[in-house]
């Protein structure tokens, strides 16, 4: 990874290593096309075209790509930048600026609150249950008492799946029978968290749903309302779990979930894949929703807090795809 003087986000070494390891596979140790471009050392029209291509191929989307390339080109002209390396740096800064989305800090680990409720939502198969398993483990290791609510009562064996994750993470899972009312599960889970388990954080696993399904979106709002009635200002975070292979539809997804239950952050999963997940830049740009975590594998430790610099580097890293 090129040396980066602007690196400011804090990330612990272990996290960094994990991300690097999983990204390694995609890089194959080869300095990509941008690397070659550096050496060309002259800013030409082709450079802008190449950048466009790389961004679009990373699922950033046409609109946001144009915006980024234009902003970079403007600054390059204005600041009289001559070296490609510097242009590249400017592009990264622009991307990071968007990704930071003026978001308040993540509000899960809040010692002043008795119980923090985190609602986890997303389309089918995006990685919600797995992410909850990883997060449960992550916060338990930080010394938090964590409880999970199995509010996906719809998908076959979803409850069993969460229970397995609960066992792996060493936290308790509150569940009803398959087909039950998810609102009732949440109600019980909050009661249990407040009373017998004296928990710090409650994660609510919800069934996957497409944002186009009106009834399911309403059901999700009901779940949110149950939490809201029981705990002051709950849910404190609403995490949208997004698969990194998703294309431009992720923007509509984020928009609709935000409208419905007020998404406060994105978890970008399956980043161990070669997919770049660039659509989160468009989401941060248009909806102001930041990325909070990234999932980098199927193991319990394969999660890290999101670092925009690391993300941007890997997005621009061009692998040998033809």
């Amino acid at each position, binding site marked *: 990874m090129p040396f980066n003087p602007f690196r400011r986000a804090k990330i612990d070494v272990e996290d960094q290593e994990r991300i690097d390891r999983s990204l390694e*596979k*995609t890089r194959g140790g080869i300095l990509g096309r941008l690397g070659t471009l550096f050496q060309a050392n002259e800013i030409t029209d082709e450079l802008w075209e190449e950048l466009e*291509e790389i961004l*679009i*191929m*990373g*699922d950033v*989307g*046409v609109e946001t790509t144009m915006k980024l390339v234009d902003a970079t080109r403007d600054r390059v002209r204005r600041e009289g930048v001559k070296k490609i390396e510097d242009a590249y740096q400017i592009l990264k800064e622009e991307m990071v600026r968007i990704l930071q989305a003026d978001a308040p800090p993540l509000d899960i680990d809040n010692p002043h609150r008795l119980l923090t409720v985190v609602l986890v939502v997303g*389309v*089918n*198969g*995006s*990685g919600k249950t797995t992410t909850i398993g990883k997060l449960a483990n992550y916060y338990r290791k930080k010394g938090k008492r964590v409880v999970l609510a199995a509010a996906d009562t*719809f*998908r*076959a*064996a*979803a409850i*069993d*799946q969460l*229970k*397995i*994750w609960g066992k792996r993470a060493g936290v308790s899972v509150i569940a009803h029978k*398959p087909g039950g009312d998810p609102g009732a599960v949440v109600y019980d889970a909050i009661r249990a968290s407040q009373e017998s388990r004296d928990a710090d954080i409650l994660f609510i696993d919800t069934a996957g749903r*497409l*944002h*186009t*399904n*009106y*009834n399911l979106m309403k059901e999700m709002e009901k779940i949110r309302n149950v939490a809201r009635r029981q705990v002051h200002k709950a849910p404190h975070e609403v995490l949208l779990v997004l*698969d990194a*292979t*998703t*294309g*431009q*539809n*992720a923007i*509509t*997804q984020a928009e609709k979930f935000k409208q419905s239950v007020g998404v406060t952050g994105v978890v970008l999963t*399956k980043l*161990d*894949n*070669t*997919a*770049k997940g660039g*659509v989160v830049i468009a989401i941060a740009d248009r909806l102001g929703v930041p990325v909070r975590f990234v999932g980098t594998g*199927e193991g319990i430790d394969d999660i890290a807090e999101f670092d925009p610099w690391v993300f941007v580097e890997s997005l621009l890293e061009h692998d040998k*795809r033809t």
Partner: protein
Amino acid sequence: MFDNLSDKLQDVFDNLGKKGRLTEADVDRALRQVRLALLEADVNYKVVKDFIVRVKERAVGADVMHSLSPAQQVIKIVHEELINTLGEAAPLNLSGAPPHVIMLVGLQGSGKTTTAGKLARRLRKQGRRPLLVAADTYRPAAVKQLEVLGEQLDIPVHSEGVEPPPPEIVNRALKRARREARDVVIIDTAGRLTIDDQMMDELVKIKALSKPDEVLLVADAMTGQEAVRVASDFHERVGLTGIILTKIDGDARGGAAISMRSVTGVPIKFVGVSEKLDGLEPFYPDRMASRILGMGDVLTMIEKAEEVMDKEEAARMEKKLRKGEFDLDDFLKQMRQMRKMGPITSLLSMIPGMGQIAKEIDPEATDKQLKHIEAIISSMTLEERRNPRIINASRKRRIARGSGTTVQEVNELLSQFRQMQRLMKQLQSGKRGGLGGLLGGFGL
């Protein structure tokens, strides 16, 4: 939101029309819009490039130059070329001696397990005796998930927990199928990344020992640029015979279909249209092409309408529409239902040919107007809604006061409603005409 392609091309074509001749530069301008639309629909960057070259070759040809309406010609070529690329609908190819084997492969979370259940159900309906095989021993509770689906369907599932290696499970499942005279074996494999060599080897092994008739890639319709790599990697390593595109009940444009089809050349066989086990349909290339181009799809709109409307209510409404008994109370209900579906303009843009109209409508003004109408009807008594003829001058004044409108506006609404009722009686076709008619009746 993105404008849809037909609108954008309309602009380009309007300009072309004035010149009456189609130059290469004109085609280029039109194709730039096509390119953007395809990229926004998630068709892979490189696939788009090739596609545009092909279209251009055809478009700058003589027949276009001499055509009377070059503009329409371009869009026709684009659409045709898309359909060509998407290929024909292809059925399952289960030939030779049973048991036939279908192997499902794909990334994590693409929908393999649910699709396995759907396929089994479909095949049984065709008189087959399927056996499901739980060969995903990695994802927690994946085995259980398939068992539950099998139970719901009353179709046997071969499962051995999560201990044995998947190829061995498959081996024993095949023996069992022969023993129990099961003629189709559907193997649910674990989701995996194509860069995971060990996991890809496992698929190769399972394929070698089970000699499947079909190896189907189950892919999410929302997939972005990565679709090309996913499909070509699976095809190279394992060898695919077809693709199933899932979750198309969402609103993703589904450009991944084009990408995957063009890099593998294997047909798209089915699409997944709901979470329920009957939600698997044959693939229709023309529908998909229209969807990718954003050219509108009446069916999508109707499905959306049905989803929001309670089924019984919909049936009742339809009957009333047919008989021309639709009254103001029904209209109020219907309008409230419609509002749930989203802004009127987005509904309109789903109807072919209405894209332009949708654009001309100011969504805010329209919404205001709808709220107005709603307010007026809400201020009527139930009796008045059922039988608007009884609304005399003094009733009109009361309604106007109650809804914060004028008598003139109340009059307007009533006359529009009469007009609409007449229109309804002419439409014998029920739902489809119903919604469009409603909108038309109110000059929207």
